C-alpha cells in the first residue's frame, strides 16, 4: 500500500523533474546571477546601485530607451495596420482550397534567418542598392537617397518581419470566428462594412492585442535589425546592452540595462494585461 503510493508519486515527478530542473538551472539561476551581477561594481568591489543610477543619470542611456520605445510603438502600429487587411483578404477573399498555400507563401520569409533577412533589406536600401538605382535610373532623383543606416531602415526591416507574424495570428483569429455571427448580422440588415466594423473587428480585437503585444516584446528586445539596418547613428536599448559587453566587458552594467529593459516589458504587460486573455487550447 505504502510502496504503491510511493511509486505512484515517484513516476510523475520523474517525468517533470528534468524539464523543471533545466528551467531552474539554465533560466532562473542565470537570471538571478544577472540580477546579482547588476548590483556589483565593474571593477570588483561590493554591493552598489551605481549601474542603475548610471542609466537614470546618463542622457545617452535614457535616449536609447526613448528611441527603443518610439521605434517599437511605430513598428507595432504600422504592422497591425498593414497586416489586418492582408489577413482579412487571405481569410475571406481567397478560395478555401488555396488559403493554406496563400498563407504559407505570405509567411515564407518569416522562417528564414533573421540575420539574412536584415542583410537582404540592406541590399535593397543601400546607397547603390535596388531602390536607389531605380530612383536615379528613372531620373526622379539626381543623387542616391540615404536609406540605409537610418531609423527608417530599422523600421522597414522590423515591419517586414512583424507584418508576417501578425498576419499569422490575425488570420488564425479570423478563421476561429464562427460564420454564424456574420450571417446573423447580414440577416439583421447590416451591409458588409457595418458587419465588419460592428461584428468582425470587435470580435478579433483580443487577437490583435495579443499579436501587438508579441510584436512589442520581440521588437524591443531585438539587437540584429537595428544593428544591421540602423547602424550606430542612433542606439536602441539592445545595442546599448551589447556595446557594454563587446567593447568594455562591463557585465554588471549590461546586466542592469537588461533588467531595466525587462522591467519595461513587464510594465507594458501589466498595463495591457486585461486585454491579453491568452486562451488555453
Amino acid at each position, binding site marked *: 500500500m505504502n510502496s504503491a503510493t510511493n511509486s505512484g508519486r515517484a*513516476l*510523475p515527478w*520523474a*517525468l*517533470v523533474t*528534468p*524539464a*523543471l530542473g*533545466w*528551467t*531552474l538551472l*539554465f*533560466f532562473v*539561476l*542565470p*537570471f538571478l*546571477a*544577472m540580477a546579482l551581477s547588476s548590483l556589483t561594481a565593474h571593477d570588483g568591489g561590493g554591493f552598489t546601485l551605481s549601474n542603475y543610477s548610471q542609466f537614470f543619470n546618463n542622457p545617452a542611456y535614457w535616449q536609447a530607451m526613448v528611441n527603443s520605445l518610439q521605434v517599437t510603438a511605430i513598428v507595432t502600429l504600422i504592422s497591425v495596420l498593414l497586416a489586418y487587411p*492582408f489577413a482579412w*483578404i*487571405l481569410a475571406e*477573399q481567397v478560395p478555401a482550397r488555396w488559403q493554406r498555400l496563400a498563407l*504559407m*507563401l*505570405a509567411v*515564407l*520569409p518569416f*522562417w*528564414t*534567418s*533573421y*540575420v*539574412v533577412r536584415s*542583410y*537582404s*533589406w540592406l*541590399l*535593397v536600401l*543601400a546607397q*547603390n*542598392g*535596388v531602390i536607389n*538605382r531605380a530612383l536615379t535610373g528613372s531620373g526622379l532623383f539626381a543623387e542616391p537617397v540615404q536609406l540605409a543606416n537610418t531609423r527608417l531602415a530599422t523600421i522597414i526591416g522590423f515591419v*517586414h518581419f512583424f*507584418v508576417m507574424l501578425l498576419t499569422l495570428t490575425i488570420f488564425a483569429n479570423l478563421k476561429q470566428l464562427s460564420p454564424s455571427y456574420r450571417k446573423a448580422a447580414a440577416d439583421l440588415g447590416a451591409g*458588409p462594412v457595418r458587419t465588419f466594423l460592428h461584428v468582425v473587428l470587435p470580435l478579433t480585437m483580443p487577437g490583435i492585442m495579443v499579436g501587438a503585444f508579441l510584436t512589442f516584446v520581440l521588437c524591443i*528586445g*531585438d*539587437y*540584429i535589425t537595428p544593428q*544591421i539596418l540602423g547602424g550606430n547613428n542612433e542606439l536602441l536599448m*539592445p545595442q546599448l546592452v551589447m556595446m557594454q*559587453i563587446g567593447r568594455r566587458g562591463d*557585465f554588471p552594467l549590461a*546586466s542592469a540595462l*537588461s533588467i531595466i*529593459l*525587462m522591467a519595461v516589458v513587464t510594465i507594458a*504587460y501589466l498595463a495591457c494585461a486585461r486585454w491579453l486573455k491568452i486562451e*488555453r487550447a
Partner: protein
Amino acid sequence: MRSSTVAKAIRILSGLYAIAIYGFIFLPVVVLVLFSLQATSFPIPPFTGPSLRWYDAVLADTRLTSALVNSLLVAAISSAVAVTLGFLSAWGFARFVLPGSGLLRGLITLPLTVSYLIIGMGLLVLFNWAGVPKSLLAAGIGHVVINLPLCFAIIYSQMGDHQINIERAARDLGAPEWKVLLLITVPVMAPAIFAGFFLSMTFSWDEFVISFLLTRFDTTLPVEIWNLLRSGLNPKTNAVGSLVFAVSIVLVVMFELMLLRRKPA
C-alpha cells in the same frame, strides 16, 4: 445591384492590396537570391548573371561549411533534448495530479516571455562565474532553454481525453508504465512531437544572439554570416544567405506536411 458593385470593388482593391503586400514581403528575398547568381564582386544592379561563382566560393570556405555543420548539429541535438524533456513533462502534467501543477507549468513556459538577448546575457554571466568556457555546448544549452517551453506547450495542448482512454486500456491489459509510454503515448503523440521538433529545429537553426554571446572559435552559421557582414555588401553573403533560406524552407515544408497529416484537409 449596389451591394454587388461594392463586393466587386472590394474584390479588386483586395487583389491590389494583396499583390502590394506580397511584393513587400518577397522583395528582399528576390533581391538576395537574384544577386547571389552573378559573378561580379558586388551584389548590386544591373544583373549580369547567371553564375554560380559565389556558391563555389561558399562551399570552398571551410569556416562557412564547418559553421553550417555546427548549426545543423546544435539544432538537431538541442531540439532532440528540448522535445524529450518537453514530452516527458507534458505527459507528467497531463496524466497525473501534481501539487502546484499550474505554477510549475507556468515556470516551464516562462522563458517564452523573455527575449533571447536576456536569456543569453544571463547564461553568459552565469557561465562566466562558473568558469564554463564559451562553446557550442553552451549555445546548445541556451537553445534548449528557448525551445523547451515551445515543445512543452505544443505537446501539452495536444494531450486530449481520448489518448487517456487508450492508455488506460493498455494499463488494464497489464502493460507496465514504460510500455504504455513507448508503445502507446509516443506513437499517438507523434504528430505533436514532430511538430515540436521541427519548430525547434527552425528556431535553433536561425538563432543568433545566444550563439553570438556563448560561442567563441567554433560557432554557428548565423554568427559566421554576421562576421561576413563586416565586409559590407558581398555576393558571398548573398550566396550563403540563399542557402540558409533553402534549408529553412525545407524545414518549414516538412513542418507543414506534419500538420497536414495530423488533420487531413
